[in-house]
């Protein structure tokens, strides 16, 4: 009974679906009609739906979240900047901020460097296609899936038992004692970072590899004729030529890392000093009924992302 598809029970969803389709057609029809009538201002008419949706989906929630961040947990009392003070003063909160900072500084740099080195190494080699698809494959795995996979890699079993975790098995083979990798701060944060790097390095490789291929062959030939060695080639020719692509990878990775949530929640749930802002935000807002604190963390995250987004826009304009 529970598992059959019951049209009666699904009725609300179907009604919503129908309403959505009807509303969509109505809006499209209205726009076409208006375009016909007032053909002098097509830009404004065409932009209106997008603007309305942005207002509902982005502007209103942003303002509301900002307001909520100055309210108490049940959103009934104004508490001023208490939530922000809480975030910036309690030791666990500071730890969360420190972890987020570590992630944002290290992960984009490591992803980009690994991707770049890999792209340069496999460039024009015989196995390039295979090598690139191998490193790209983890991209197809969701963060939660990757988290579970790596949780197994780090799994601990006591010395006298059979190891089921890859890392500890290797450690045992090397004649050392198995360790509980995810429970040893501050090292565990780095073990979590490995997961994200594993996922994202493929993205960096593909983007940067494409950029490398875009370097005009005249430049490369000229450099070779001038006697540039491999290092000079890399630092003086390749890197400057693909600088915009490198920056794009760095920036997108930085934004993605700031919002990081799934990996930490799946693997440690923020325990053992590994929490990051997004995990704390979710827990406070949706599990603890502390909407104010959750909102304050969300606003803080928003403020942190803004300069990076702004920089990305600037980058796009100069290109």
């Amino acid at each position, binding site marked *: 009974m529970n598992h059959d598809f019951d049209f009666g029970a699904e009725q609300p969803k179907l009604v*919503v679906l129908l309403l959505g389709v009807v509303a969509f057609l109505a809006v499209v029809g209205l726009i076409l009609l208006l375009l016909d009538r007032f053909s002098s201002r097509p830009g404004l008419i065409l932009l209106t739906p997008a603007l309305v949706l942005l207002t509902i989906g982005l502007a209103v929630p942003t303002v509301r979240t900002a307001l909520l961040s100055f309210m108490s947990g049940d959103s009934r009392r104004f508490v001023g900047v208490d939530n922000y003070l809480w975030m910036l003063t309690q030791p666990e909160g500071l730890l969360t901020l420190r972890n987020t900072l570590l992630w944002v500084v290290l992960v984009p740099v490591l992803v980009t460097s690994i991707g770049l080195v890999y792209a340069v190494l496999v460039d024009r080699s015989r196995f390039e296609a295979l090598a690139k698809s191998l490193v790209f494959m983890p991209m197809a795995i969701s963060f939660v899936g990757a988290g579970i996979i790596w949780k197994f890699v780090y799994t601990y079993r006591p010395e006298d038992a059979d190891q089921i975790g890859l890392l500890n098995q290797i450690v045992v083979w090397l004649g050392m004692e198995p360790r509980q990798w995810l429970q040893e701060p501050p090292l565990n944060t780095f073990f979590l970072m490995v997961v994200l790097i594993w996922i994202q390095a493929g993205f960096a490789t593909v983007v940067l590899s494409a950029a490398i291929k875009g370097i005009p062959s005249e430049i490369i030939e000229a450099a070779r004729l001038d006697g540039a060695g491999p290092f000079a080639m890399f630092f003086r020719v390749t890197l400057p030529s693909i600088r915009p692509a490198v920056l794009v990878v760095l920036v997108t990775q930085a934004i993605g890392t700031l919002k990081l949530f799934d990996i930490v929640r799946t693997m440690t*749930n923020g325990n053992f000093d590994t929490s990051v802002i997004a995990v704390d935000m979710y827990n406070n807002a*949706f599990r603890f009924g502390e909407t104010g604190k959750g909102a304050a963390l969300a606003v803080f995250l928003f403020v942190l992302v803004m300069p990076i987004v702004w920089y990305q826009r600037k980058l796009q304009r100069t290109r």
Partner: protein
Amino acid sequence: MSKRPLLVGTIGLALVATGCGSSTPENKPAATGGAPAPVSAECKPYETYGKHEGTKVTIYSPIRDKEADLFQETWKQFSECTGIKVTYEGTGEFEAQIQVRVDGGNPPDLAFFPQPGLLERFAKAGKLKPASPEVTKLTDEGWSPDWKKYGTVDGTFYAAPLGASVKSFVWYSPKMFTENGWQVPKTWAELMTLTDTIAAKGIKPWCAGIESGDATGWPATDWIEDIILRDLGADAYDQWVTHKLPFNDPKVVAAVDKVGAILKNDKYVNGGYGPVKSIASTAFQEGGVPITTGKCGLHRQASFYANFWPEGTKVAEDGDVFAFYLPGNDTSSKPVLGAGEFVAAFTDRPEVKAMQQYLATADFANARMKLATYVSARKGVDLANAQNPIDKLSMEILADPQTVFRFDGSDLMPAAVGAGTFWKEMTAWINGKDTKSALDAIDKSWPTD
């Protein structure tokens, strides 16, 4: 966000319209036929709830899968006889989703709350309907005042209890005990002596696992609650869960250290899994399993752990595993930690009241028990209906007049503590944090309003 209630409202209207449309033809023959149809024998017990032809009651609950199917089977007859169509929805995200549904203007008719603390939040926000006189009467007859208290907020009674579980159990292997001549301990001192005896045998006496995804840490908090209830007493326990007794009070510190003497002692834990820290990464479902392989002697976990033993493990006093009551400091009193669900109503239509009333009866509890494993703290349930010895033992303990029952404290505290820092800090505590700093951090996190 602002658009949502309007949309939901419209759909609701549409539904009411279609609901009326479809039910009219069914009602017509009865109306024109004059005399009401004679009541069949199966429906005789449900006569008191009246006829609610064509009505619908929605239930939202954290109970899922097999147990959910069993519930639906239990009230099938009720549903057929009263004409109330019951739409049951179980979810793994009850705590977060119930808030979303209520905020979104789409609350269920009834909800099974496993946390009195969460129930209190909705009652204080004015979202819940007080219980009907019938439900109140059934609760007064059926449950001890301790239980009724947990469905009461600011003097108003809202929710009758449903199922129950006893948490103060220690699982062991009867075979291992007989082979070694060990006795089930009756006092805390005896338990600690037994612990040393087992350790001297070269077996780690205790095993534990507190990993539980989002809720990692809860089994450790159950330990603490059990000891606070024993050492500080029921009154102090009540003060502790309402923060009248600070979380870092020296008495609480002492109780936590008493737990630490077992859980943070490498000589005593963690049988089958390694050193102390492995407790934090062992899934609670697997915590006691080493008992079956002889690598661990004792595992403190609730009655529902009966479902987590490997396939083919016989749960009985003469079987592979069984549980004894986690003893008090002496035999004169019997403090018991437990948990359960409470049935609260967000609407007060007659059919919703009828359903809520039916769920509070001993008939419902008995019918449910006959189907499969289930524990109820209700008076008037027939213990002969218990499906396994641990259910029976649980209900005997719950019905024992000597028993001082207290609800799982973390379910009573504000979620920020009870489902947040208490779990988190106890996990950190297992992982090496000292007692005082862990308790200081929990105390500081207690919401101020």
